[in-house]
């Protein structure tokens, strides 16, 4: 039963990681830039959920909408500051910009909200059901369900709409896409927007799952999103999602084997091992051109 409990914890935690990985991969694939501020995006999502709860008296729908609004605004600013200018520049410049942006975001939230841990109201309720002696909160199942729904929506968007076609074109080959008339700036802005929105929602779920938020939570989250995304070669969304899920489950089971302190270590080692054996992750798509771009970074 201990095993089942850990499995369920792993699944819901993994679902959240998967969502973060998806958002991160989307941005990395679309804009071609690794965003070191992704963890802080998630953190902002968590905090906007927290503020929404006090503004809207814990109405779940309004909280979700508010989180989406804040994340979208942030993503537009992020794009204008760190990405718009540097789409053709050496990669390290925008990377550094995102680091700077992340520092600003984190400290701004600290200044506004204070340094201390904040309790998140239980938007999805506390009800649970019993299974063989252990208590399983419905919250965990809701989270998995929400993630699945979001993935379905995203998949529909990417694969069956014209916007999706544009997004995929730009991520495959930016120059070719601009040659056939796609507005690259607008599309990367949109890609960034969707990625940050997903990040914000992941932050909301993260806050509900753990029940508390802290302005410095972004750092560890960045690493986890990156680890999961790297497995998918920074461009393959389904693999990244799967990696996120795997990471969540693996982390929860590793407690049984290793002391708690080493848990974060595992995601980093995972990351490095993947990169050692597969320097570009598992790229299942036809990515000759963007690999060259990545190499020139």
């Amino acid at each position, binding site marked *: 039963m201990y095993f089942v409990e850990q499995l369920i914890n792993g699944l819901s935690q993994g679902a959240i990681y998967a969502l973060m990985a998806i958002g991160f991969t989307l941005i990395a694939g679309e804009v071609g830039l690794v965003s070191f501020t992704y963890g802080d995006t998630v953190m902002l999502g968590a905090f906007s959920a927290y503020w929404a709860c006090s503004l809207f008296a814990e109405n779940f729908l309004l909280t979700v909408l508010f989180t989406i609004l804040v994340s979208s605004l942030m993503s537009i600013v992020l794009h204008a500051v760190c990405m718009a200018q540097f789409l053709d520049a050496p*990669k*390290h410049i925008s990377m550094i910009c995102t680091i700077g942006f992340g520092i600003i975001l984190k*400290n701004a939230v600290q*200044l506004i909200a204070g340094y201390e841990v904040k309790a998140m109201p239980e938007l999805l309720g506390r009800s649970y059901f019993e299974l063989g002696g252990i208590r399983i909160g419905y919250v965990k199942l809701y989270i998995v369900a929400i993630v699945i729904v979001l993935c379905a929506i995203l998949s529909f968007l990417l694969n069956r709409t014209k916007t999706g076609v544009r997004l995929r074109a730009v991520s495959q080959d930016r120059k070719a896409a601009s040659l056939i008339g796609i507005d690259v700036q607008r599309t990367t802005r949109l890609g960034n927007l969707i990625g940050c929105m997903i990040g914000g929602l992941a932050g909301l779920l993260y806050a509900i799952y753990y029940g508390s938020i802290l302005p410095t939570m972004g750092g560890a989250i960045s690493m986890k999103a990156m680890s999961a995304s790297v497995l998918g070669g920074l461009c393959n969304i389904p693999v990244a999602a799967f990696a996120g899920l795997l990471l969540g489950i693996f982390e929860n089971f590793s407690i049984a084997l290793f002391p708690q302190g080493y848990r974060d270590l595992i995601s*980093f080692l995972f990351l490095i091992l993947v*990169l050692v054996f597969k320097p570009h992750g598992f790229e299942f798509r036809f990515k000759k051109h963007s690999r060259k771009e990545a190499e020139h970074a």
Partner: protein
Amino acid sequence: MLNRAVNYVKAHRLPFFIVFAVLVLAFPIIIPSNFVRGIAVRTVLYMLFASSLNLINGYCGHFSIGHAGFMCIGCYTAGLLATKAGLGFWLIVPISGIVTSLFGLLVFLPTNRLSGMYLSIVTLGFAEIVRIIVLNWTSLTNGPLGVKGIPSIKLFGLKLTSTTEYYYVILFLLVLSLFCMYRILHSRVGRAWMSIRENPDAACSLGVELAKYKAINFVVGAFFCGVAGCFMAFYYRYIDTTMFTIDESFNVLSMVIVGGMGTLVGPILGAFVINLITETFRFASEYRMLLYGILIILTMWIRPQGIAGASNSVLATKRMAKRVQSAAKAKRSEA
């Protein structure tokens, strides 16, 4: 406008340098405040850290953002050797450098086949792995309790106690390191690094063995970081893993970015500027970090190579396609 200021200084190098050298050497005598001397020691220490990061980032074009990992190793090696094996400072300096450079090699190994973004992620991951292992390996490192009671530096049998004395020691270390770096950079190795930075494919085609020189780059950069870490352990006399978080990596990184990459002067200036801001904003320290972030972004927008960075290198370009044009332009304005 900044270009003109920089060029003016470059043209009148010698007088500026003499004035600067006198100020630096006489500093502790001019300023009587022990507190300010303490800040000076810390600033010079960071100048050394930033210089070591600059070797990796600025000269070879890697993008390492996990320097705190090397700092941690350098510091802990020194701290543990001093407290557990009772070795003296001057003996530990090279040992700490060598141990850290071995780790530099370790970091290099998986990154050889990796490109820009992946390399950065790995360096960040490496720094965190080091920190977590040090934090948890209680039997060796005392875990979260840190290493305390590190003795002070002994010079010819005399124990150094005052801040002034420590200042001169770190100044000596910095000058010695800069001299070594200068020699390395003007040798075949340094030229190989810069060619790798500008265009790895071209370098390879001209016979530069990429892997070998990249490895040397990490090893040398890590070595100087280890030396600085050793001093840090003996100066603070108490170290623990909270001093080597991701924030610390970003701290040193911002010194290199803002001050300049690809020149020896750059990180010196950067460390000076950042530490100056730290002290100025002591009363409003929450805003200090915000300012760092803004400075970093501003620097990237206006002058990507940093205030005193290498202007005619790839670091200065903001448009990939225009690389040839801007390099030519920089050359024309230099002449």
